[in-house]
């Protein structure tokens, strides 16, 4: 450019670029999905008036939950300890397995399209096979015990953890990776040294999120003979011991809130959003530490220790003490849990010999003579999933936005909505379903509504988390123009995360379709009823067929998600 141009001359404008065919196609696909969802909601014919008339049924139902009936403390502690141990080991296992899979699944870290396809498929299959089915298979291989239970929980968790990890990796800034690449670093090196540190906050948040889900759904462990809070809760609710059930749900909720708070603290630390003015305990430690260690000062020379060696470790201030304590505690907890979970590997190899025979029961998948029925049920399931996602979206978006600490009007508001989200996640599905049944009667409506509420728990959290991970400095830049919070949100924050939020919504659709399959309990119809019954009556070829249908559906949703994300970035 030259000297400032005067603006009275015609500004030569570049031609406005035509939007690419891909972009138009991606938006169209999303639009089609939206239309289908709206149609699904309309087809439910939700009758609000009659729901309002039946509200006293719900009040009556709630009144029977009190007074709460807590189990004796000793029993409770044992149960909690057992559950925590198993869930911790299962979640750690899932994280360890998910990380490499997600690295192959993410477009920017994969080794090639083939591996990427394989990794994405592994993730989808782990997700689409219900943990109950994993438990059935693994039980037949390994017999009863902690090991098959943990493995079932862990394998199914890969479906969620792997996907969210891969999404987080794709969202990351590629600059540092490029820097290490241009220093001759190998793929493994730049991944471990730049990708993983950059996505660490999301890795930990997702792991803790899954931990919290596993805590609540450890019900299926009953299938391999393990007790615990989840199973007790499910049993209490199934036998209509609501007072006991709600008491247990409350305990699980407290655990979940603790996990959520922990997650918040760790994320804030890793994202560097903690206040730099340390007061309270941290300030106190700092003041003590200042007496015997000191920060290196002065730019010119590296510091040397008394022995003349170079100082290459940070000072032990409250920051480092806290980090050290955190890591040490985590390792200790995981180790303790592994011991306490009491896994028995002695017959591992003999057991594995049973694998082909067990898999043989599932093969070849066959609908038997129910093909039309199953296909129709699958369509109903998809319809419920679409409707629930749309309704859930309407609820989850505002709640998720208000729960993001960098978007909410104040930290207090954010914490309030975070708590609401955790409580919704903590509501047992069966309770939600029953509430809607007594209001609306059986059928797809209560199932859809229950799923829609449940969506707030997952989608609300995912949206809040990804908003918190946006580049705050860009928000600062827009804020510095005097824009209101809402304007900053739309112009900068949402713009940065839009592709990720679309991915989350599609993930919620996938979750809802899969949950809808398990909605047999509320008489929602759909494929789930057949899945549960088929496994109950040992028709494993039908089970396999149903799972194959679910996998195909989930793969389709996943393909749309991956594609729109790439195009709309």
């Amino acid at each position: 450019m030259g000297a400032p141009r005067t603006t009275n001359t015609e500004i030569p404008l570049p031609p406005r670029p035509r939007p690419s065919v891909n972009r138009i196609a991606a938006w169209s696909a999303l639009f089609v999905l939206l239309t289908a969802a709206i149609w699904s909601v309309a087809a439910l014919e939700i009758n609000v008036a009659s729901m309002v008339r039946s509200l006293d049924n719900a009040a009556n139902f709630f009144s029977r939950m009190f007074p709460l009936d807590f189990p004796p403390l000793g029993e409770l502690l044992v149960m909690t300890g057992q559950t925590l141990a198993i869930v911790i080991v299962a979640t750690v296992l899932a994280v360890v397995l998910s990380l490499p899979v997600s690295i192959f699944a993410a477009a920017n870290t994969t080794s090639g399209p083939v591996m990427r396809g394989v990794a994405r498929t592994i993730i989808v299959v782990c997700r689409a096979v219900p943990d109950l089915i994993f438990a059935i298979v693994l039980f037949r291989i390994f017999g009863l015990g902690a090991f098959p239970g943990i493995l079932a929980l862990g394998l199914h968790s890969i479906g969620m953890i792997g996907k969210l990890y891969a999404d987080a990796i794709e969202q990351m800034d590629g600059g540092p990776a490029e820097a290490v690449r241009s220093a001759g670093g190998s793929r493994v090196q730049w991944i471990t040294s730049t990708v993983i540190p950059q996505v660490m906050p999301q890795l930990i948040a997702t792991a803790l999120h899954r931990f919290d889900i596993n805590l609540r759904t450890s019900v299926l462990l009953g299938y391999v003979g393990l007790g615990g809070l989840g199973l007790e809760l499910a049993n209490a609710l199934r036998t209509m011991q609501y007072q006991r059930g709600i008491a247990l749900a409350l305990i699980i909720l407290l655990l979940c809130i603790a996990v959520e708070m922990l997650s918040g603290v760790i994320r804030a630390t890793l994202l560097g959003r903690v206040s730099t003015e340390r007061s309270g305990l941290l300030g106190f430690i700092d003041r003590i530490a200042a007496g015997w260690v000191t920060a290196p000062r002065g730019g010119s020379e590296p510091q040397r220790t008394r022995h003349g060696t170079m100082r290459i470790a940070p000072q032990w201030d409250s920051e480092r003490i806290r980090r050290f304590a955190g890591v040490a505690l985590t390792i200790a907890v995981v180790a303790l849990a592994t011991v306490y979970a009491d896994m028995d590997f002695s017959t591992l190899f003999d057991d594995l010999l049973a694998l082909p025979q067990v898999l043989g029961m599932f093969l070849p998948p066959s609908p038997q003579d129910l093909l039309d029925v199953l296909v129709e049920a699958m369509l109903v399931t998809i319809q419920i999933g679409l409707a629930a996602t749309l309704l859930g979206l309407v609820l989850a978006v505002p709640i998720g936005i208000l729960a993001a600490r960098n978007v909410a009007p104040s930290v207090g508001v954010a914490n309030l909505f975070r708590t609401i989200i955790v409580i919704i996640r903590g509501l047992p599905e069966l309770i939600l379903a029953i509430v809607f049944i007594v209001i609306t009667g059986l059928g797809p409506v209560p199932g859809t509504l229950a799923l829609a509420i449940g969506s707030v728990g997952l989608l609300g959290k995912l949206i809040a988390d990804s908003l918190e991970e946006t580049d705050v400095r860009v928000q600062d830049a827009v804020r510095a123009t005097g824009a209101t919070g809402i304007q900053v949100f739309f112009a900068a924050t949402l713009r940065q995360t839009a592709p990720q939020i679309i991915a989350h919504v599609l993930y919620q659709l996938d979750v809802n379709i899969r949950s809808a399959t398990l909605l047999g309990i509320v008489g929602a119809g759909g494929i789930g009823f057949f899945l549960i019954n088929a496994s109950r009556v040992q028709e494993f070829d039908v089970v396999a067929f149903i799972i194959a249908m679910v996998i195909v559906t989930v793969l389709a949703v996943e393909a749309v998600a991956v594609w729109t994300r790439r195009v709309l970035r």
Partner: protein
Amino acid sequence: ADAAEAPEKLVFAQIPSESAQGIADDNEAIIRVLERETGLEVEIQQATDYAAVIEGLRAGQIDIAGMGPFSYMVAKDGGAGVEALGSLVDDPDEEPGYKSFGIVPAGSDITDLEGFTGKTVCFVDPTSTSGFLYPSAGLLDLGIDPEADVTPIFAGGHDASALTVADGTCDAGFAYDTMVTTELIESGSLKEGDLEVVWESETIAGSPYVASDKLPADLISQLKEIFANDLNVPAMVESGACSSAADCQLPEASKYGFIPVEDSLYDGVRAVCKVTEAAACRV
């Protein structure tokens, strides 16, 4: 729904019973008969959780339901407001019901229930009628405490319980009759003779169909009539609901159909509950 008003349609809910034999319970023939006789539309809803169905009955959102013996008792005694209509049998003279088997692996030296003392014993889950309640009652009868005198394991399902016994992880266990005699063998998980049956429970009353007492009284008595007279194979062939006896598909592969049942038939379940003091019985 208001008790006095006649409903526009009947909502029929079905929980698959413990002893279901197929993937989809076949209620179509029954529905056809019900619609024809009452002149009302019948809407079928399937659910897999009996708490959901009982709460639906209590709230008046469900009019007719097929239940398990145990869930019937819980609904009835828990004040959900139900009237038994009838139960499925294979033969009109037979008491409706099925049994729980005590099983041991082939070649075990345990020969009867007493031999379970001190062993690892597989149950199904704490809410299962034939997988926990009846077996517990059986053990208690012999003075064996199912929590203290054996090492209990809840396998989570009848199949799991039986298979765990077969592979020796449990020394003994319980499952309902046809799981042991047919289902696991047909699905190829077990071979004939892998398990030995060392105990049979008394007959557990068959699964009753119920009506909500929020329906008008005359409709309830009409329904009782229909279950007593019209919902069996001979009557259905005669009325043209089925073209032939072979064509008459009924739930649980019943060979006859419904016979009326009295509430007292389920006193057996109540007695077991009393003996075992099981949590699931507290209503």
